[in-house]
């Protein structure tokens, strides 16, 4: 047979074999994407897609190794406080290893915590620039975590990290209204709990956020009772402080000391816990009925007026206008 004819037949056979396997490979790719074994495709034009995923795709089998090296480079950028380079490095790293929680978590932490603190305390920029950079860094960290969750919707630790960031007393001013931020934090914590894999703490953190959302006190009370029951009545001081506030809220005319006796082990313990909660102004915790309870408890425990918790100077919540 003529050599060229042979090559023609070979080309035809290659095309036929391609047509035969194409539907199978197409279905398999979808299956792999559904099993989180391959990243989902970006809905952009082919050229742009190849540009964006070039390294991620072509380094098959070596992607996580390259991500390890880039993580080392990001550490060097962090040491030199080159925040833009840190952000860029983590963008590439998560393209290479989109299912590694550590990279998402660390990338977000660098922006929302380290870069933000740098602009708060160390930068030589003018105050207004520092304030803008501080806010931008925190929002960048939040965006990064939200992208992380889009890529890993079942990862309870990423959801928990978002909840933690949104309810952080030192960052909340960057997000606008604290009430809305606590609501978003609650949603993130709740989503983490709903995965069924989260630790017991996560549900408690969800409660701490929900209790700070104005207008959702009834839901918060139901959750507080559930959490306390789940912990077999061995909760934390914050939990008992909130339980008191939330039980008090619907009926301000109730017998406060009776409520105190129902919730706390002793009146001394009640005074300590409620006193601390009264002083935690930076955390925006609700204080319904706390002043009333403290007044009555101080009278009973013979605390002098000068030493009264209610006389202590309260710290104002974090306010960027005052910090810069």
């Amino acid at each position, binding site marked *: 047979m003529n050599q060229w004819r042979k090559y023609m037949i070979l080309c035809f056979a290659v095309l036929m074999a*391609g047509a035969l396997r*194409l539907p199978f490979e197409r279905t398999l790719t979808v299956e792999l994407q559904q099993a989180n074994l391959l990243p989902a495709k970006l*809905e952009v034009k*082919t050229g742009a897609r190849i540009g964006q995923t070039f390294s991620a795709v*072509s380094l098959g089998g*070596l992607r*996580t190794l390259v991500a390890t090296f880039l993580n080392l480079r990001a550490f060097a950028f962090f040491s030199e406080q080159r925040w833009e380079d840190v952000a860029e490095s983590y963008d590439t790293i998560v393209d290479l290893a989109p*299912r590694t929680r550590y990279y998402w978590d660390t990338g977000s932490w660098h922006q929302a915590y380290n870069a933000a603190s740098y602009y708060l305390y160390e930068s030589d920029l003018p105050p207004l620039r520092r304030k803008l950079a501080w806010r931008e860094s925190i929002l960048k960290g939040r965006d990064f975590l939200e992208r992380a969750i889009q890529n890993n919707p079942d990862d309870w630790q990423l959801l928990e990290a978002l909840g933690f960031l949104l309810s952080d007393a030192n960052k909340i001013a960057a997000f606008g209204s604290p009430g809305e931020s606590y609501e978003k934090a609650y949603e993130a914590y709740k989503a983490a709990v709903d995965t069924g894999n989260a630790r017991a703490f996560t549900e408690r953190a969800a409660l701490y956020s929900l209790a700070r959302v104005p207008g959702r006190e009834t839901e918060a009370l139901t959750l507080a009772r559930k959490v306390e029951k789940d912990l077999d009545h061995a909760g934390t001081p914050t939990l008992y402080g909130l339980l008191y506030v939330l039980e008090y809220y619907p009926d301000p005319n109730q017998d406060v000391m009776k409520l105190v006796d129902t919730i706390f082990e002793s009146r001394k313990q009640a005074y300590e816990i409620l006193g601390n909660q009264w002083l935690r102004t930076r955390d925006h915790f609700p204080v319904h009925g706390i002043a009333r309870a403290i007044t009555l408890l101080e009278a009973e425990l013979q605390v002098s007026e000068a030493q009264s918790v209610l006389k202590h100077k309260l710290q104002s919540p974090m306010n960027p206008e005052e910090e810069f």
Partner: protein
Amino acid sequence: MNPLPILRSIPSHASRVSVIALHAFTQLVRMKVFYFLGFFAVILIASNFFNLPQHEGPESAGVNILRSIKSWSLGAMTLFSVVLSIVATALLLPKDVEDRTLYTILAKPVPRLDYLAGKLIGVLLLIFVSLALMDILMTVILHLRTNMVLADQVAAAEARGWPAGDIQILKSDILAQGPTASLQGAVFSVFLRSTIIASLALLISTFSSSTLFTTIISFLIYFIGHFQADARAAYFSQEAGTSDGWFTKMISLLVALILPDFQIFNVIDAVIEGQVMPVLILGKLTLIGLFYAVFYVIASWFIFAKKEF
């Protein structure tokens, strides 16, 4: 047609293929390919002791090193298997021509298909043995290190007074980064990908003029093959604004039909990150790997059958 003569000839074919395969295997072993295993062992042991400058919270201390061991190991396995499958296969035919072994073999009643299949199996045997040894080494080290991390983390969690349920969650998280069945599946996927690239290199070597040509073209196809899935997606994309016109569609279709899809084997990276690979998916990958290997061997035989030397 009476199938009996064909059935009767199977043992003799198998015997010839195995002799050629063992010869090719020995030939490659003599090229001191296994020295790479020493290099691999050094990489693996070093990755176990590297204290890389990175951030680690107390609750995740040590887990990164497990991921690092897997990344280094599977990265080294990938490099070794791809390079060996291309270079060794590209070398086989020209070397036999150069040594004049090919004339001796083909002068005997050895079907050319048996010769090609034997050579390919020899290369694959070498890759399989190497990967198996590397896998054993990786699994042992990963197992030891996982137990160390687990013991440290559980002790720390108990000291912090974590509830039993939370400690269980911590244990599952750490064990998912250890030596799992999915990790063995990932190693097997590395082998499957090598099988495809070696059989493709065999096909190219049947009509190529030099070893260098075969090697370069094989590496190029390996590289472009990672984008075959994107070309296929572009062809099938129906939504307005997602396709780039008729010409691009046709080019995409051609790429999708001609080149093998290597992107499906990128599951290896997901497994390193701790994802689970179901057995069914591994089965499907095996099926597609076999399809490519059988097709490329038959295609190689088609070109090689009447070739004169």
